[in-house]
């Protein structure tokens, strides 16, 4: 990273970030001194052994938790400020759709709450740096919930209730909902984790399509994409779409991400930051290619080193965790 890159030019900047949970006099350090920078337009996957604090990391970035130490900045501001301006979309493992609302009503929910922030759209006033004007064709008008449902292939189901639909369809609706106000940063916490393997795989390509345009069109949005490339994820003018994606699945991480960040077992710290240099758009055939497989085996290797022996974990935890 060039030395002149300031925090406000980064989409996400984590410095010395730690989180310790206290419960009945016992403490548990989930994250320890994490530094991480995410540039605008990057897709960063976070992977690590279970219980390593991946979700905690995402919740800190999303402002659902506050750090015990260190800081989180989203475009140079606190997560709370970024969320007041509705810049951050969240997709959880559980779709969390409201059963008394139709799909359309669920996707419209983000537009109904916190209205004060919505129309004072900060996108135009923000310093856009070198990215200014690159998204000239993108409208900063938030897309309509109906368009978003069409985007995830659920146009004809807008009047249905969530419980009338399959798990995959529900998660697609949750994805549409997270895009309702055109966020520039999407936080995804194992979004496909509760789906069956086949649906899961289909959803990966669905997400790729959303991120990089119609499959096979040959107009990758990032890596110098032309401003006329079809942009299926309606975002704000002047913003590149950035994703922070927590997953358990190595192939999922390699297929989707520009960078894969490997966390250690608890307390989670960054042990590897691997750039995935595979061209976009990424077709399904990619998974059979040697490059793809060399990335997955490297990651598998890195993760295996992280798998702790049970007593090693215990020996390590108290040293860091018991301060209070």
């Amino acid at each position, binding site marked *: 990273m060039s030395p002149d890159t300031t925090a406000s030019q980064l989409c996400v900047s984590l410095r010395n970030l730690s989180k310790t949970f206290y419960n009945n006099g016992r403490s548990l350090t989930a994250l320890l001194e994490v530094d991480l920078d995410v540039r605008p337009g990057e897709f960063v996957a976070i992977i690590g052994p279970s219980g390593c604090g991946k979700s905690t990391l995402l919740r800190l970035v*999303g*402002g*659902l938790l506050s750090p015990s130490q260190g800081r989180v900045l989203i475009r140079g501001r606190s997560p*709370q400020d970024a*969320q*007041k301006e*509705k810049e*951050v979309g*969240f997709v*959880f*493992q*559980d*779709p*969390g759709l*409201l*059963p*008394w609302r139709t799909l359309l009503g669920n996707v419209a*929910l*983000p537009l*109904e*709450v*916190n209205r004060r*922030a919505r129309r004072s759209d900060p996108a135009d006033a923000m310093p856009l740096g070198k990215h200014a004007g690159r998204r000239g064709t993108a409208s900063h008008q938030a897309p309509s919930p109906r368009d978003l449902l069409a985007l995830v292939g659920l146009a004809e*189901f807008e009047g*249905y*209730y969530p*419980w*009338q*639909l*399959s*798990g*995959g*369809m529900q998660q697609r609706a949750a994805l549409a909902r997270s895009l309702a106000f055109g966020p520039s940063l999407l936080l995804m916490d194992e979004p496909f984790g509760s789906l069956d393997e086949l649906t899961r795989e289909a959803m990966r390509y669905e997400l790729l399509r959303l991120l990089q345009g119609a499959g096979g069109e040959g107009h990758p949005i990032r890596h110098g994409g032309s401003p006329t490339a079809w942009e299926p994820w309606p975002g704000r003018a002047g913003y590149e779409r950035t994703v922070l994606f927590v997953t358990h699945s190595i192939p999922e991480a390699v297929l989707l991400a520009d960078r894969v960040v490997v966390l250690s077992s608890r307390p989670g710290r960054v042990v590897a930051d691997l750039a995935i240099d595979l061209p976009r758009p990424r077709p399904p055939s990619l998974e059979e290619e040697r490059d793809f497989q060399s990335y997955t085996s490297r990651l598998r290797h890195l993760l295996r080193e992280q798998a702790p022996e049970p007593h090693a974990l215990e020996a390590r935890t108290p040293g860091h965790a018991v301060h209070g």
Partner: protein
Amino acid sequence: MRTGPSPIPEEGLEEGSGPTLVGRLLVPLGVLAGAFLLWEAVVRLRDVPIYLVPAPSAVFRRLLEEPGYFLKAGLVTLQEALLGFALGSAVAFLLATAMAHSRPLERGLLPLAILVKVTPIVAVAPVLTVLLGFGPLPKVIIAALLTFFPVLVGGITGLRSPPAGALDLLRSLRASPWEVFIKLRLPSSLPYLFAAFKVSITLSVIGAAVAEWTGAAGGLGRAIWLSYTDLNMPTLFAAVLVLAVLGIGLYALVAVAERRLLFWHESAL
């Protein structure tokens, strides 16, 4: 039931479960008619004196003899029960809202609510009548007291019932506490509230009638008490019958409202 993933929407939710309204009423009405017939037969065959147990035919005859009397008494009790139900539910829901948002408040107030709950209504009713007179007010209060506890408990549980995921979502949108309440907590609490309403609506009728028993200018409870003092069993049974119809009718109204509002809930599918 919320069965496994099915991409094909289930049809026919409006049709409910098969038969029409008449069809669904047929069975319970048949059972009821059978019970009345059996009762009639036993009274006639064993020659039970009318001051002990009147035959159903005698009860119905009494009812038809003077329908205005029972209607008027029924309306008095209905009014007291409904006012008490509304008052008790409103206070309980307001308290539940406060208590669902604050554990200390819950810990402080719940013992008080339980105290109200365990105090026998037959002990409180005469005191209120002595204090507040023979008018409707003590009856409304008793009905409200009986309504209060189920709605309070249902309200607290219901307002706390939204899944963590949905709460996280609204928090991540920086929704205000009011928005979280109106968009998430209130709708999530409805299944619990309606379960409580079903219990409370019948209790409110009982409460009003019991309070009337301790001294009243009108109402079914008073009718029952008057006929009891001169062993006029047909009148007493007729008044009890009207009371029962009142309770069933109110319960049915709540159940219909529940089906309408909670179409999305497991209990309705």
